[in-house]
């Protein structure tokens, strides 16, 4: 059963958030023509009469794009419509060569889904209103001016390479209870889409983009307030910041007896505030009507089942499995299971049979820190899953202490060596030889007669000091448990 705990906004108020997420698909060709979908190629090198909207050109639906969209829809547990319709969304802008975008309107590809995501220890479920297909606009480059926006620019250039890239729009219900949850939702949704292999979801390339709708209402109310739409949040952090800024603004308006105006707001990351877009940019009547150049899209049951059967394991399911199969706490499972690369790394390492929790700690700790610092994908670099597992095995067997293991790990990053060999070469093995340690203990006790005396007089905590002295004498390589035993034994003699 879903438990939604609303984050507490200014006291007595709670936010209600919904998201519209656009995902560019990584199909080989565009949505309605045979031009290649590419990134970073010279401008206007992937265009044709169709995506430049030359007179007489007609769109033809990319079947692979439908399959990819269906993959997203099914992963979001949506119902795929057996019959859906493309509409024309009409407006003039230089990045839209036909002056209409072929999109879907009242008969989308898929409806009524849900997406479960975790915020800390809490599992939230967001209902998905719809998943539909459309085409991306071209890319505008505004030259001159300071902001890079059209206002104040000297001239604008259009790169039609992106124009016509297949785009999937995911629209949620207003089920997201906090800015933090919105951020988590997006992060985990992005991970899921990546897992599906249908988009590179590169945020710098704009392959995943989003707008947020937000309203506030008195805690406990079930009615929705008037919402505003937030744009220009091109990182997860900005999304959270924008929502966090918008909540007190709306509450202040309402508490002052005012009304929220339904409008579109532009988030300015510099100031951290939201400002209304000029109404001229916003006042659209899109005059939707069914696209007469395309026949209705029919999707049969066999197609749906084929796509469904080919779905990979999704992060949410994997997180649950990690908890069950490896006995990991939820936090560990979320960290390790959310992205495919790290999950695969962990699972490969776990095949060695080392203690899963210990392995999880190492993977989430030193290993993930290394991956993040180096800016590489999990699995890349010298530290293979096998090597990390062998290091964990060394810890497990007491061959190295955990402090020693950290040193071994650091050396592994540089030396491309097996951990055992590093331990050997650098003399990092934990001293577990009882005879050798017993000699050292004897020596330390003889060097600290006063402390030995104190202990014997009943001051038990002195044992800790003596253990420390032994560890120091062994340069930290001694097995602490064994040292502890031997010190107490020696004091008892």
């Amino acid at each position, binding site marked *: 059963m879903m438990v939604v705990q609303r984050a507490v906004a200014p006291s007595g108020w709670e936010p209600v958030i919904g998201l519209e997420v656009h995902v560019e698909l990584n199909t080989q060709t565009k949505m309605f023509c045979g031009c290649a979908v590419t990134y970073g190629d010279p401008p206007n090198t992937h265009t044709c*009469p169709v995506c*430049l*909207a*030359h*007179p*007489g*050109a*007609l*769109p*033809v*639906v990319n079947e692979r794009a439908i399959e990819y969209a269906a993959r997203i829809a099914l992963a979001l547990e949506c119902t795929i419509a057996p019959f859906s319709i493309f509409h*024309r969304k*009409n407006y*003039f802008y*230089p990045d839209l*060569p*036909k*002056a*209409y975008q072929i999109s879907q309107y009242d008969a989308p590809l898929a409806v009524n889904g849900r997406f479960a995501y975790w915020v800390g220890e809490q599992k939230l479920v967001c209902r998905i209103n719809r998943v539909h297909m459309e085409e991306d606009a071209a890319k505008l480059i505004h030259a001159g001016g300071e902001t890079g926006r*059209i206002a104040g620019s000297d001239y604008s250039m*259009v790169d039609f390479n992106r124009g016509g890239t297949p785009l999937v729009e995911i629209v949620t219900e207003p089920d997201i209870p906090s800015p933090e949850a919105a951020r988590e939702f997006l992060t985990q949704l992005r991970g899921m889409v990546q897992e599906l292999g249908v988009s590179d979801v590169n945020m710098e390339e704009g392959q995943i983009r989003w707008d947020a709708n937000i309203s506030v209402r008195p805690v406990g109310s079930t009615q929705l307030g008037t919402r505003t739409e937030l744009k220009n949040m091109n990182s997860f952090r900005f999304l959270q910041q924008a929502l966090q800024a918008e909540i007190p603004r709306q509450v202040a308006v309402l508490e002052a007896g005012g009304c929220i105006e339904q409008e579109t707001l532009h988030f300015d990351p510099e100031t951290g505030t939201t400002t209304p877009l000029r109404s001229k940019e916003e006042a659209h*009547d899109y*005059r*939707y*009507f069914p696209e*007469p*150049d*395309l*026949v209705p899209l029919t999707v049969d049951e066999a197609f749906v089942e084929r796509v469904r059967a080919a779905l990979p394991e999704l992060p949410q399911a994997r997180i649950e499995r990690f908890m069950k199969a490896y006995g990991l706490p939820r936090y560990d499972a979320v960290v390790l299971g959310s992205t495919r690369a790290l999950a695969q790394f962990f699972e490969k390492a776990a095949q060695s049979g080392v203690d899963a929790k210990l392995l999880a700690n190492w993977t989430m700790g030193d290993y993930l820190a290394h991956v993040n610092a180096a800016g590489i994908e999990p699995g890349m670099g010298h530290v293979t899953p096998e090597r990390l597992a062998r290091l964990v095995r060394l810890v497990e067997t007491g061959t190295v202490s955990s402090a020693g293991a950290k040193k071994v790990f650091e050396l592994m990053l540089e030396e491309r060596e097996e951990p055992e060999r590093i331990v050997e070469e650098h003399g990092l093995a934990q001293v577990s030889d009882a005879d050798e340690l017993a000699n050292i203990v004897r020596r330390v006790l003889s060097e600290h007669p006063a402390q030995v005396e104190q202990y014997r007089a009943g001051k038990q905590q002195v044992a800790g000091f003596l253990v420390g002295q032994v560890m120091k004498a062994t340069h930290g390589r001694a097995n602490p448990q064994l040292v502890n035993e031997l010190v107490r034994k020696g004091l008892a003699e």
Partner: protein
Amino acid sequence: MSVDGIDPLRLTARAAKRMLVEGEISAAELIKVYLDQIERVENRVRAFLLVTADNAVRYATEIDREAGAARGALAGLPTAIKDNMVTEGVLTTCASKILANYQPVYTATAVQKLWGDHIVTLGKTNLDEFAMGSSTENSAFFTTHNPWDLATVPGGSSGGSAAAVAAGEALWALGSDTGGSVRQPASLCGVVGMKPTYGTVSRYGLVAFASSLDQIGPLTRSVSDCALLLSRIVGRDAHDSTSVQLPEPIVEPQATRLDGLRFGVPHEYLAQGVQPGVRERFDETLRLIEELGGIVEEMSLPHTEYALPAYYIIAPAEASANLARFDGVRYGYRSAHAGDLIEMYEYTRGEGFGAEVKRRVMIGAYALSSGYYEAYYGQAQRVRTLVRRDFAEAFARYDLLVSPTSPTVAFRIGERVADPLSMYMSDLCTIPANLAGLPALSLPCGLADGLPVGFQIIGPAFSENRILGAAHALEKAIGFSALPTFKDTSAVACGDTGGGMHSSHRASPSDARAEGEGA
């Protein structure tokens, strides 16, 4: 027969094809016949926006060098193309200022197919701007004159193609039909014109007016030619999602009898405004049908009166979106004195489009706008469904439906310019077939007041062969043999309505306008 014996006003494509195949004439000689005729009459008819004479001669010469099997099925046949089908490297203007200098980068599928058959393109024919009109008076450049009486219109929007065929300036031509734009000018110019079932001819490269209604179709001097030309342009096209494969190929019509065929005459099509002369020729043709063994019955298509208003919502609505791409950004006309983006759109479109195009774009945008959509576009689509149902019920009882193609013969240039509604009435009998996507053909059935009268045959979807067969039998029985006289009954010299940037342009073989590579 030698070249000297060829009368371009009478020569059919079938006959020309036979003569070429049998070596009686060469392709170059045949082209010369048409270029000479263009030289003789074009300055009076003004059917062409562009004559690609040099290309035509060069290409015909090449064809003459090709032997036997290497020659395409229509090798050397001189053809005119309505100027709303894109032709790579050859200007395609849609008779609009906004595309006055537009050089397409690809070729329409239907034209490409004909090029694959080695037809020879004579040039691009005049039309009402973006095919919006019934007279060619909406051309931004000039009005085409009807060869039967130069003071009258050739009909439209494919008026240039119809006039070119009627005037012997082309062996045959392609037109496009959105609400009667092939059949009505065919009727007014005394030639055969056919709109096939929606989807049978690819629309790829046909500059869209109303996507759910547009179809390319032939304008020819005989029913048999019509079948021949149609048979070469039909077929499913991967570039047009709405295209379909005909269930059976188009065959050469042979029928001379109509035994047992049931013909329905929708009385709504005869209700108002049919000129007496048109009615007489129509009734005579009905009697011929009975003489040929056909059964004629008056019947009803009850929703006919709503078809015209529904059409004038749906077509403008689609047009308002289809013509939105002409924004001055990527190609075509761009206003020189815009200060910002919005002005660039406004001035470009304000200066680039003619009055009728603007009227329809505005009607269409209004009909689709928030709050009005259901009352206009939604309602029109429901009417369309009812019109379709009328036809479906009719074709359960009748094999074919017949009517006059146009309620009137060719009207005088300028007569209806100030009255769009009376102009719209020209298409009363032709529009319902577009709304229902049905095939329909117009063939000449005689003269009234010295001007041709067209007889329309409408069939169920994919009944092209049935329609062509019946038309063939009727054509033989009617024996229409009158020829246009190029007389001019205007008291004063008729001025051009366009007066636009190309009003000084006159097409002739020596025409200076750019010619591209395609033949």
